[in-house]
């Protein structure tokens, strides 16, 4: 088929398949040969088949804010996003460095706060931060690990230009899509994998299991008991929680399956209470323990924080890690990386204006049309303003909100996010993407799964890739060197 479909004309953006100048880039060469000989009708049938597969396996997410909890599919696009071996090794070194720094930072701010003493971060950025958890001061997490699982959101603007958009250090989601996307591609296009040497991602659940077990507390036996804690079947990511528990072969528990028995957290089995050593929780800090945090929480385990502080359970990720991916702290990440690793940051930060800062606010108010403004504690693409695509009225409304609570917002320039083609009705069409690689941290080391989740804004020109806002996903290939 004509691979340069009608929509592949030159755009101001860097396309990962066609570069800036419509010349096919090396990582896509093999794929391009295959694709140009494919019948579009067959590919369209494959696209539908993929959707059927997803629906049948139940890979759905629940949409918040609707009267009836509705299960929806995240659209899947069959054109893979391909990253070359050398590109990836540079990236993964940067990711490792960043994750190492985040863990050191967390240890430090919950202990001696050297970074504050050194004057690199103001005291009130830490102690005045909602994401700072005083309960964690002086606590030694088993194995010294705070963020067992991290998902670093990256965007690209040119051949060598990667930026970190966000460090998801609490409970990053989406890894099940990474795995199922690959599974689907393997089923649909086995011939592609015979031609391209793509690094596998399927070991993730085994690696996760091993990594978590390596962080077990001292009281655990030879075979630590792991469990995944979910808020329940109405949570938007319930499918993923069940998927991961299933893939690891461990129990999927809810708060009411657990209770503190003899100083341990134990789950109610058909034969009585059995202690849990490592809890991979997908419940936010606030709801984790009604005795220590939000007293109305039905999702947590009363007293689990006391067991944790006594060193008798591993909670992954540790409570209080949210401060590391706080959008206000984000601006300090280059300092944080340098302070703890003694190295120059390998990954760039996006320039960020803090609206809490009077000069920052003035700049942001003057340049709203060109900026992306985000809520400091928001997530999932809710409550943000994308200046260049917003209407005058949106901007005016946002200006009011911003003036009312400046401390609630940060702003960043609109990045020229790279595009990757999707398979549209008219053929290939460039769409903006981001990348979330998944990182596992244990005393045995840091492991970055090759690839990650590529999210793609399916609407032409759109920069919002969030699934809750109409984004889709792609399989992400890292080539063998």
């Amino acid at each position, binding site marked *: 088929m004509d691979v340069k479909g009608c929509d592949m004309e030159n755009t101001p953006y860097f396309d990962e398949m066609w570069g800036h100048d419509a010349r096919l880039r090396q990582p896509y060469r093999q794929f391009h040969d295959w694709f140009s000989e494919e019948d579009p009708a067959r590919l369209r049938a494959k696209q539908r088949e993929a959707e059927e597969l997803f*629906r*049948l*396996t*139940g890979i759905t997410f629940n949409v918040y804010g609707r009267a009836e909890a509705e299960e929806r599919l995240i659209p899947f696009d069959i054109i893979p996003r391909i990253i070359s071996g050398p590109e990836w090794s540079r990236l993964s070194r940067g990711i490792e460095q960043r994750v190492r720094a985040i863990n050191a930072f967390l240890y430090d701010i919950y202990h001696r706060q050297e970074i504050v003493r050194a004057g690199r971060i103001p005291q009130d950025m830490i102690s005045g931060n909602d994401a700072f958890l005083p309960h964690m001061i002086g606590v030694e997490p088993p194995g010294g690990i705070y963020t067992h699982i991290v998902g670093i959101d990256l965007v690209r603007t040119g051949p060598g230009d990667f930026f970190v958009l966000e460090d998801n250090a609490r409970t990053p989601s989406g890894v099940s899509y990474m795995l199922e996307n690959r599974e689907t591609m393997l089923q649909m296009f086995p011939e592609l994998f015979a031609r391209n040497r793509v690094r596998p991602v399927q070991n993730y659940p085994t690696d996760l299991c091993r990594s978590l077990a390596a962080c077990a507390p001292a009281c655990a036996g030879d075979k630590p008991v792991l469990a995944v804690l979910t808020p329940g*079947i109405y949570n938007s990511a*319930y499918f993923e929680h*069940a*998927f991961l*528990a*299933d893939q690891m072969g*461990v*129990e*999927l*528990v*809810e708060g*009411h*399956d657990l209770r503190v028995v003899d100083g341990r957290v134990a*789950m*109610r*089995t*058909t*034969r*009585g209470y059995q202690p849990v050593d490592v809890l991979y929780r997908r419940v936010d800090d606030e709801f984790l323990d009604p005795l220590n945090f939000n007293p109305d929480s039905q999702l947590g385990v009363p007293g689990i924080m006391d067991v944790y502080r006594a060193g008798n359970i591993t909670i992954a990720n540790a409570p209080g890690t949210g401060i590391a991916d706080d959008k206000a702290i984000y601006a300090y990440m280059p300092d944080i990386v340098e302070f703890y690793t003694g190295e120059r940051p390998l990954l760039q930060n996006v320039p960020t204006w803090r609206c809490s800062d009077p000069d920052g606010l003035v700049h942001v108010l003057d340049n709203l049309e060109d900026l992306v403004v985000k809520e400091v504690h928001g997530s999932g693409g809710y409550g943000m303003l994308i200046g260049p695509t917003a209407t005058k009225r949106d901007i005016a409304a946002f200006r009011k909100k911003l003036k009312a609570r400046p401390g609630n917002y940060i702003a960043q320039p609109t990045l020229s996010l790279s595009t990757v083609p999707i398979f549209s009705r008219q053929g290939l069409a460039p769409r903006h993407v981001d990348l979330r690689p998944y990182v596992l941290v244990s005393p045995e080391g840091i492991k970055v799964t090759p690839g990650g989740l590529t999210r793609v804004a399916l609407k032409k020109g759109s920069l919002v890739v969030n699934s809750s806002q109409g984004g889709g996903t792609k399989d992400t290939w890292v080539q063998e060197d």
Partner: protein
Amino acid sequence: MLGKTANGLFWMYRYFERAENTARLIETGQRIALTRLDAGDDEWVSVLQSAGALTDFEAEAEGNPVTRDEAVDWLLRSGANASSVLSCIEAARQNARLVRTALTGEVWEATNATYMTARRILARKVSERDLPETLRTIRQHAALVRGMTLGTMMRTEIFNFARIGTFLERADSTARILDVKYYVLLPSAGAVGTSIDNVQWETILRSVSARGGFRLEYGAAGGPLEIAEFLILNKRMPRSLAFCAETVRENLLHLQQDIPDPLPSLDLVDALLAECLSQDIGAVFDFGLHEFIETVLAHLARIARQIEIDFRFYE
């Protein structure tokens, strides 16, 4: 295994069994209504009763007489009826999501496919013309789930809870059908041998998919006594009370192997088998068929409650 998981498995399979039983009752009702010349809508009252759905239906109908269309719709797809085929399939799938980690991929996909199909074909009122095809599709999907369960699940406690749920529900269903129709099986019913009786007896056998089996066991000569015996005491008939109770017992015995203390629920099943299901059919009729069925239903309810406690389904 988590108590919650055991609970979810138990109910997932109970709901699937109930969906299938309700579908079969609708099929029977439809068949009887079509083959009887004097067909009124009386038959639907007893179908609703057998499905345990009459009281709610009447409340919903606010005194209007039972019509075929409304009865079928209520049983098949009403969201207000927790035991409608659609409600049961939705509840089964909801429980399956809850216990996803205990199911094989095959069972989960069959369950999900059943749910998606049911939502599609039961989205609108089903016309009389489409009813047979609709019911056939539901039966085939239920068979797919059962087949995947038997063919792919490990014979661990997971399987035991699935079976216990299935067979307790089935025993309940068979007992309820007998409870509604017991009077046509009584020797004193007067009209023995008339065509009405034959139709009524046929209804009972159809309701439990047992016409072929009954002929194999008793030839063409079987009457009400034999029907009662077949449905209550026959150990080879997979929907008889004795067969269901025996299967529940086997699965509890398997669970008991790993538990040091004797299971009270197992004692209750033993009591049901000894007190009710080990006598001959003459004794059952002497005791009173109606009273006997009521006794069995009470036993079944007690067993289900005890299983919840024994295996920590709830806090």
